């Protein structure tokens, strides 16, 4: 028996090798590049460079915009998930409808917002036909937040929906029987029980929003630089990989912080999207 046990264990060998070669070593490479200069000598200057005016401005803007986008996703997504969770019989189809847009290419969907928001775009044509003031948010931070909310809203709704459908109706009925009104039931039963979903949704939205460079490029014009744009340029244009890696290390600190918070609140993986 002991022998057989060992043989089965070997089946995960290929993946252990794969994870080492393509997950762990690449991450070490980022640290190696980030902590050295072109001659290979140790330096902290790539990391400290985040504090320069140019880079810290991009970082704070990214943090600000992604926090706003995450908050909007939560405020829009919670009621949506709650409504979907209550439509017991038809919810499958409705969830399906909300996820379907994700199958159209992400770049094209974001570009379509460019077409919709342009000065002479669809939305402004409709507004001016109705003699309403036009909306001029393309190439501003507002358009970037809109793009973030649009692209990442499903990542917020799915974990919320999963944790809401897991709540036993009897618990809610018991609260009502014991005299709790709607608000009390929500605050003391529903909300605490959905915290894993909320945390997981926040992580799923905040990390991609914080690190995006595509949305800012397509909807923010060339003037607004987020930290993702700064890092991407280091690798595809200016070519200082050491600086790009150093800035990525700083970015990873935020990501790791986010992971730790979600691990603390969601020990059982209840808010998992899958």
């Amino acid at each position, binding site marked *: 028996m002991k022998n057989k046990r*060992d043989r*089965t264990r*070997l*089946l*995960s060998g290929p*993946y252990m090798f*794969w*994870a080492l*070669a*393509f*997950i762990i070593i*690449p*991450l070490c*490479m*980022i640290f190696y*590049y980030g902590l050295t200069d072109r001659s290979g000598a140790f330096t902290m200057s790539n990391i400290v460079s985040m504090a320069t005016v140019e880079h810290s401005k991009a970082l704070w803007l990214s943090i600000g915009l992604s926090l706003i986008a995450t908050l909007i996703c939560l405020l*829009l997504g919670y009621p949506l998930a709650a*409504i979907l969770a209550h439509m017991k019989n038809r919810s*499958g189809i*409705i969830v*399906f*409808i*909300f*996820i*379907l*847009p*994700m*199958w*159209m*290419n*992400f*770049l*094209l*969907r974001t*570009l*379509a*917002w460019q*077409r*919709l928001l*342009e000065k002479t*775009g669809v939305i402004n044509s409709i507004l001016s036909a109705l003699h309403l003031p036009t909306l001029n948010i393309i190439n501003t931070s507002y358009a970037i937040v809109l793009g973030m909310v*649009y692209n990442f*809203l499903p990542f917020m709704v*799915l974990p919320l929906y999963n944790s809401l459908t897991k709540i036993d109706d009897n618990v809610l009925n018991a609260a009502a029987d014991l005299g709790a009104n709607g608000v009390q039931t929500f605050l003391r039963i529903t909300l605490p029980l959905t915290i894993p979903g909320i945390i997981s949704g926040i992580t799923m939205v905040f*990390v991609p929003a*914080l*690190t995006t*460079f*595509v949305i800012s*490029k397509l909807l923010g014009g060339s003037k607004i630089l987020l930290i993702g744009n700064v*890092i991407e340029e280091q*690798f595809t244009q200016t070519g200082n*990989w050491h600086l790009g890696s150093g800035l*990525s290390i700083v*970015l*990873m600190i935020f*990501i790791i912080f*986010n992971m730790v918070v979600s691990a603390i609140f969601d020990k059982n993986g209840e808010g998992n*999207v*899958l």
Partner: protein
Amino acid sequence: MTGRLSSILKKIYIVLIFIFLYAPIVTLIVLSFNASKSRAKWGGFTFKWYIALFGNSDIMEALYTTLMIALLSSTIATVIGVLTCIGLRRMRPGTRSFVLGVTNIPMLNADIVTGISLMLLFVSIGIRFGFGTILLSHITFNIPYVILSVMPRMKNLNMSVYEAAMDLGASPLYAFLKVVMPELLPGILSGFLLAFTMSLDDFIITHFTKGAGIDTLSTKIYTEVKKGIKPEMYALSTIIFVTVLILLILVNKPDKNNKAKESSPSPIVLP
């Protein structure tokens, strides 16, 4: 009375979000039928972009690369992922949670960091950028989706049935294929489909690992952004969207005659 009002409000809310989600999709579909090449003006209805699409070797090549990468990477990821799940069962809990922790990294880490880290790896081992590097990267981010889809099924598996099969004379492989496999199949299928769609939709990781001279649809669109997107691309994305829509309706359609309901895959809603 309030119940009725709130149900109307709920419907309005869902419709508004629905409009928000579908406005860009409708825009893209409309643009694919727009005779005027200028994006702002409506120049009449046409099918010409759909016809031009099949003559556009650039786009067709990118489509072929995208589909090949998606198919190969999700297949290889599924094989590796399933083997891993079987192996992990027999491991010490400590090692197991370490492996699962590492598996979470590509899922939780930012795509830009994953992309850069793989690019740095490929540069330092001197591998030539191209189809191979894209494939390796896609397998890497696809394996976790397979593991996370199969693992819950693996945990619920009753191994006594497998041992019983062997006590009754089945070989380990036969017992595995006849007893364990049917239990895992729904998880394997949804993991495969999840991996396939993730690969299809990826832009960021491909952007950093592709090198010159090869394009997937996403990177092709990205390079076209500056010059202006060719309307053929709208036509292609409309075709893909409608195809996926039809396929999903067929897959998710409740089949009343299907007796083997439990072995049918759960509704696939995640991309």
